[in-house]
């Protein structure tokens, strides 16, 4: 099958050639490795927080047309964004706690046929 690539090398194994150059890493990609640092992530989070506060503040400057009563609530979209994201994660965890089974849950029950 075309979807079966060579097995991945164990963690820590370099694909570098004897000359030291990694044959498979794009030079442009290396420059993005700063995003992995905790400091970078903190700055990204801070920037998003500032942006959120800024666009929320615009509610008092720019008139936003609303069709319904819910939409008229000041900052309703910010509230939906914040609360909705938290709710998705919380309820998602509940779904997992209620419905998660072993990965081979369906495979353990029969000796062949319709299910797998």
């Amino acid at each position: 099958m075309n979807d079966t690539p060579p097995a991945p090398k164990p963690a820590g194994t370099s694909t570098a050639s004897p000359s030291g150059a990694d044959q498979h890493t794009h030079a442009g990609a290396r420059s993005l490795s700063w995003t992995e640092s905790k400091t970078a992530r903190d700055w990204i989070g801070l920037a998003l927080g500032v942006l959120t506060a800024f666009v929320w503040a615009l509610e008092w400057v720019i008139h936003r047309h609303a069709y319904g009563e819910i939409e008229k609530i000041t900052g309703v979209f910010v509230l939906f964004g914040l609360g909705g994201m938290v709710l998705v994660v919380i309820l998602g965890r509940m779904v997992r706690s209620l419905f998660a089974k072993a990965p081979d849950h369906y495979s353990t029950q029969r000796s062949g046929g319709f299910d797998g």
Partner: protein
Amino acid sequence: MGETAFSLSAIQWHHITPALPIILGGLLSAAMPIAGLRKLIGLLAPALALTLWLSAQTGSYGALVIGEFTLQTLRYDGLSRIFGLIFIIATALNSIYGWHDRDRGQDACALLYAGAAVGGVFAGDLLTLFVFWELTALASVYLVMARGGAENINAGLRYLAIQVLSGVTLLSGAVLWAGANGGSFAFGADFATSTSGEPFFDPSTPGGALILLAFGIKAAFPLLHNWVQDSYPRASSVGAVVLSAFTTKLAIYALARGFAGYEPLIYAGAIMAVFPVFFAAVENDLRRVLAYSLNSQLGFMVVGVGIGTELALNGAAAHAFVSVLYKGLLFMAMGAVLLRTSTVNANQLGGLFKTMPFTTVFCAVGAAAISAFPLFSGFVSKAMILTAAAKEHHELVWAMLLFAAVGAVHNAGLKVPYRAFFDRDSQRRPKEAPFNMLLAMGIAAFLSIYLALPLPQGWGGMSAFYRLLPFDIGYDAYTVSHVLAQIQLLAAAAFAFAMMLRFRLYPQERPATILDTDWVYRRLGYGFVIWAAAITGQLWSGAMSGIGLAGDVLARRIHAAFAPAGAVNRMISDGAAAMWTGVLLAVTLLAALFAA
């Protein structure tokens, strides 16, 4: 004798359904052993289909008379036009994406499947729709099974059973509907200049209800949806991209044609948009996340169909159009990851941007589109449905859709690209995707941006896209209100996501089977079948034993009576037996003589 000259100009091209070249391409591919030629067919077929689409004229054509039935193979109007176009575009993109693949079955079935979907869109009656409806099922099942292995084949069988069930239900409904409507197999209203706001089929009748059920199965209605999550992630990297484009959008088209304005669809759609969000949030298989996300996006379209106003139907059609592109793009990105790393599990990936930068960028474009980021295609389509819901005073539905939009941001907008390409370093250093995959992703990404750009007149972009829609209503997506509201939603959602990651409140995915409605037929249904088979086996064994026992008893009795040492022979001498046999024969002959 006069000469007969064949002239291409004499052919009425606008009478030919665009499905024909694609289906013929599929059949030709099936018989073509040379992979390179199959790939060329995969490009030529949609090119020819596009030519036919461009030459088509509004109206109904291509009538085929079979016995007492007339099949209308081509109905071209505002609704079929836009769905037909995106299916043709998707066919071409799929062919480019799968250029490296050497599976003849996948090449052929992908084209047959696409052709059947195009045929279904342009079908002018229920019988023609049924033919293409079933062909999509038969052609696509191979794509589910193509990776081989017992689990994938069984998933394909389950997929086939459900798709065929939808087809049989459709045929039953069509027959009942025709019986109650003077034998008419007409399929839905013509989308000429406006919509009546009332559904064409009456769901309160048996025929209408069965037709709605058939459409609902393929549209992944709540409780009928899990075949999508069961089958799509099983397919190959190419197969999943193909599968994501057609079946569900064909069902949305059918709903729009037959049930536009049917109010219960509004609430069904709202539920469809919301509930998959929670399952997608905890799935480890990123293609399964995309499958749930696809389900959620279908909910938006169903809401639009249910509202039934021109704005809502435009929104449903537009959202279906762009969804094929950005969802296809996301599946393409995950397909590339699968090809290079052999996994799409979130707990096994991360840091792939280092060696797959282009795939990362294209995935990010798809994520921005599904998140309805301004200047990306989802922004200009989703807005219409939300606005339509608000204008018709469906506030609860509006709120549910807005929440579902946040869910889409989380699942496909953030989780999929973040877990696959960023997050922690998984130490995997796969090569970038093959050029053909990057080309297909690039085209899909370009369209996902281009269709949303508010360009000047004559430059295309959003205005050209809106002109494709069924109704001309002059909607403007880029109002200050809308742009501000959407940026607020996105910024706040991204901030919440970042904070949950920062303070380790975000749950790590782990391998698991998340039970869904497929439990009903995979556990309960399968258990019932096993139990019924055991009971039937026991009853049959018992019956056979009983018959056998009775037979034995009868045989022993006969033997005891008529064997040489049996009771009859002991009671009667041979001479007497012969005499009485002769007397009996004479009596019988005399009786027969006098009876004649």
